[in-house]
């Protein structure tokens, strides 16, 4: 058998990827064969495990070696045991049943008189503990907290924290140990004890008062660090043990956040002042501690002079050259803005300056902060900067552009200094970043146009749009808004020189034939909008020659390759032939939609978690609300939001269902069906039917965005997982989004079907699943709406079927993980 060294050499000496794969595969096969030998001796097993770990480092599968690891770690030889435990930590994880086989070995070794053997067992337990292991072995850890060996005590404290995390009931057991542990001098044990305190605090609410009583003990250690002299063992660049420093501050921050009646506040404030003063001019690790101290100041309700000092430190960070400190400064300013808005505002210039930074991490933070400090007074000035930023940023910032267009549009709603200015800004944005508007934001802009009652302003805006789109015709958002405005207000802006009926038809013709958009869905959307605009204008134009051109324009799309466009063209041709009196009512100008409050999005972290739940519901259905149709409200899941703009088209016909019936010459029964007919691909109509096969959709469903909140898990068989994201629950109905994810690392799951049932007294509506084939790691969603008696519980029985590797799998499970009631 070759050694590990020669295996590593042989892999490294390969010249191509194929050769490397071959070398790895060969060795992997050898290891498997060798594992099958029942008489494998220990030295060979050791070599195999070593190689297995190298495979692990290369990212190769290693599951076949799991049992062998367990065999190796029971070896009496220390080196084999050490390797065995190390391998167990790396290639096992807490989800595997094989862990139960580990219980016995851990139990034995935790009792070992040799502290290094017990140490190995502790490290292993700390890294891969499962709830079962926690229950079985907590007593061992508890007794190790009392051991005389500081080496084991420090490890045991961290392991205890891990066990509490896995099994919160254990908090009771370990909390009693904390007072004596907190008296320790050893930095290692203190680090672990503080972690244990934080974990218990997080897991067990009843612990809060007990732990808060221990604050003086934590403060004593902090005071010692803040006043102590030089200690060569722990100092880092002149800062006394920064690791312990940060851990102490962090613990205080956890324990005292939001605690209104904190008897130690004054002592803490004094100490924080002292720490900040002492470390103000330090570098490196000093900044890390200072940063933690500032976060503590804002978490524990410190005195206002201290808070102002905190903002001062952050602004100093901002002015430094080191990008890491600047990054954390921007990040922290964002979280303290609610405490000290005025103090943060003072540093506006510096924040805006960071928008120009070469580093995307800094730019992202600066952007989010810029929006956070935006208000009525500074919106003009900040918008100028942002528009400049939009115009200047490179293609690598596409994500940021969408973020800016969204946030700035929302800000225009909220802080606008005047509608005149708002239109100017929005049109300018459409012009330079028209390809980076989400559909619901475009809807909002259209809504804003409709709400505007000043006819002169509308005329001015439409003229501006027409001019802009002549230059920037490849900006999708601009095109959509222009075409739509043309359809609505085209007759208002006519003058005898520049804008004539003929020139407007020319514009529509140009858009209809435009081929600058790579994505067919965008191209089709533009065509659909153009057709509607043409139809609308036809009832208002005076020149019969231009009306005839409009007819031809619609007629020419009858043979479009897209079914949707084709259907629309044929329907519109029918309407075109109707008498003027019918057409006039049918093609009336849109009534203004009601105003909606919008919530902002966050670029990252903190706020996304809560906000993204409500966001799709709030911004998405702005236009859906227009047609008075209950079904449209039902599907608030992401896909609906994506395609709301299509619904504008259906809206146009919303008021005139009866005429439409004859015009389209199809057998229809009412308003709902017409909407279905005209917006064939709009998922807003989907909930009316229980299950729609995905193939009937002509426009591909949008991927659920990455920001989809973490679903409540309902089922996981390591091939797929199913979870639910609760949307609106209450008033006798509940909307959920089902999330199906492929959990495998390399297999595609096909033919996914989901069937749901609710209790007898409730009714259920399901939308189709967005995708029924999932690549590894991919996610599909489906919308669920439950209606029933108010106050009843949400309970679902789910049948899921799928195919993997040619095998059909069917599973049934129940879900009742939602605590809110109807």
């Amino acid at each position, binding site marked *: 058998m070759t050694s590990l060294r020669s295996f*590593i050499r042989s892999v490294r000496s390969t010249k191509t990827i194929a050769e490397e794969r071959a070398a790895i595969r060969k060795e992997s096969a050898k290891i498997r064969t060798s594992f099958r030998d029942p008489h494998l001796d220990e030295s060979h097993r050791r070599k195999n495990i070593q190689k297995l770990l190298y495979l692990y480092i290369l990212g190769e599968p290693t599951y076949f070696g799991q049992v062998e690891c367990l065999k190796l770690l029971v070896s009496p030889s220390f080196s084999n045991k050490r390797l065995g435990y190390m391998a167990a930590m790396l290639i096992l994880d807490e989800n595997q049943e094989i862990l139960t086989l580990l219980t016995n070995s851990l139990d034995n070794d935790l009792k070992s008189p040799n502290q290094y053997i017990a140490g190995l067992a502790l490290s292993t337990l700390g890294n891969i503990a499962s709830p079962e292991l926690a229950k079985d072995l907590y007593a061992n850890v508890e007794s190790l907290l009392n051991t005389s060996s500081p080496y084991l005590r420090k490890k045991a404290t961290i392991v205890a924290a891990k066990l509490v995390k896995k099994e919160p009931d254990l908090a009771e057991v370990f909390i009693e140990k904390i007072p004596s542990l907190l008296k320790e001098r050893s930095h290692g044990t203190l*680090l672990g004890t503080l972690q244990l305190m934080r974990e218990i605090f997080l897991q067990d609410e009843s612990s809060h008062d007990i732990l808060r009583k221990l604050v003086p003990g934590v403060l004593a250690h902090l005071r010692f660090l803040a006043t102590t002299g030089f200690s060569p063992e722990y100092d880092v660049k002149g800062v006394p043990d920064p690791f312990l420093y940060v851990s102490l501050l962090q613990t205080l921050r956890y324990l005292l956040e939001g605690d209104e009646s904190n008897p130690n506040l004054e002592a803490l404030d004094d100490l924080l002042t002292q720490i900040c003063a002492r470390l103000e001019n330090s570098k490196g690790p000093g900044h890390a501690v200072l940063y933690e101290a500032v976060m503590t100041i804002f978490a524990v309700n410190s005195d206002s002079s201290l808070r102002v000092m905190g903002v001062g430190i952050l602004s100093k960070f901002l002015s430094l050259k080191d990008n890491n400190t600047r990054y954390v400064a921007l990040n922290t300013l964002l979280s303290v803005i609610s405490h000290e808005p005025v103090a943060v505002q003072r540093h506006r210039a510096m924040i805006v300056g960071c928008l120009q930074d070469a580093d995307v991490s800094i730019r992202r933070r600066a952007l989010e902060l810029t929006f956070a400090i935006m208000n009525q007074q500074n919106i003009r000035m900040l918008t100028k900067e942002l528009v400049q930023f939009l115009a200047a940023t490179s293609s690598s910032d596409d994500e940021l552009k969408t973020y800016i267009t969204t946030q700035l549009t929302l800000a225009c709603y909220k802080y606008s200094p005047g509608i005149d200015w708002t239109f100017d800004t929005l049109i300018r944005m459409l012009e330079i970043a028209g390809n980076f508007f989400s559909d619901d934001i475009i809807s909002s802009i259209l809504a804003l146009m409709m709400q505007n009652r000043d006819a002169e302003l509308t005329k001015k805006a439409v003229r501006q749009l027409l001019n802009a789109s002549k230059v920037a015709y490849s900006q999708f958002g601009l095109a959509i808004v222009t075409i739509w405005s043309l359809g609505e207000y085209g007759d208002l802006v006519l003058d005898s020189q520049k804008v004539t009926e003929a020139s407007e038809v020319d514009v529509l013709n140009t858009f209809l034939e435009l081929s600058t958009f790579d994505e067919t869905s965008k191209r089709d959307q533009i065509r659909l909008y153009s057709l509607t605009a043409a139809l609308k204008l036809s009832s208002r134009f005076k020149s019969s020659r231009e009306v005839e051109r409009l007819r031809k324009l619609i007629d020419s799309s009858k043979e479009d390759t897209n079914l949707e466009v084709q259907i629309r063209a044929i329907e519109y041709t029918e309407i075109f032939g109707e008498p003027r009196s019918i057409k006039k009512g049918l093609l009336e100008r849109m009534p203004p939609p009601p105003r909606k409050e919008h919530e902002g999005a966050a670029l990252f972290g903190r706020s996304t978690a809560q906000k993204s739940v409500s966001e799709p519901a709030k911004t998405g259905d702005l236009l859906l609300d227009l047609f008075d149709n209950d079904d449209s409200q039902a599907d608030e899941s992401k896909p609906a939001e994506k395609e709301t703009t299509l619904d504008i088209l259906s809206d146009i016909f919303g008021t005139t269902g009866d005429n439409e019936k004859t015009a389209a010459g199809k057998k229809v029964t009412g308003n709902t069906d017409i909407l279905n007919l005209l917006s064939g691909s709009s998922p807003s109509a989907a909930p009316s039917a229980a299950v729609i096969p995905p193939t009937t959709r002509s426009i591909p469903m949008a991927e659920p965005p990455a920001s989809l909140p973490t679903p409540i898990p309902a089922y996981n068989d390591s091939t797929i997982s199913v979870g639910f994201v609760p949307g609106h629950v209450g008033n006798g109905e509940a909307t959920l989004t089902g999330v199906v994810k492929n959990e495998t690392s390399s297999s595609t799951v096909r033919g996914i079907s989901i069937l749901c049932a609710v209790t007898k007294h409730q009714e259920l509506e399901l939308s189709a699943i967005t995708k029924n084939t999932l690549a590894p790691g991919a996610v599909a969603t489906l919308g669920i709406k439950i209606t029933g008696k108010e106050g009843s519980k949400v309970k679902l029985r789910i049948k899921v079927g799928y195919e993997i590797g040619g095998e059909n799998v069917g599973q049934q499970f129940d879900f009742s993980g939602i605590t809110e009631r109807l």
Partner: protein
Amino acid sequence: MTAIIPLRKPKMCNVIEYKDSKLVYRRYASLFFIACIDNDENELMTLEVIQRYVEIMDKVYGNVCELDIIFNFELAYHILDELIIDGVMQESSTSEVLKRISYQEQMEQSTGIQTVYA
């Protein structure tokens, strides 16, 4: 991850927002050390932890380089296990970690001999 980080310039900040976590990295010549942390963790401190790990490796291996780690990755993991458990720093004294590592390395040697002669 491996596509983004090496492309970043030396002066850029060492934090990247990645899904719902943050990646904190530090580069030493051609070696990258990357840690994935929660959102509310102290990024600057994470950089110090990486620095500490590298310092200790430097002492144990003696001027550590890529090949040292590749050919003796076991040792690199052992050091990490004496510094961190479950993502939590367990020892803030460099000399203490070094002492524990060297004891255990000695134990490996001696038990190795014992098993040969046993």
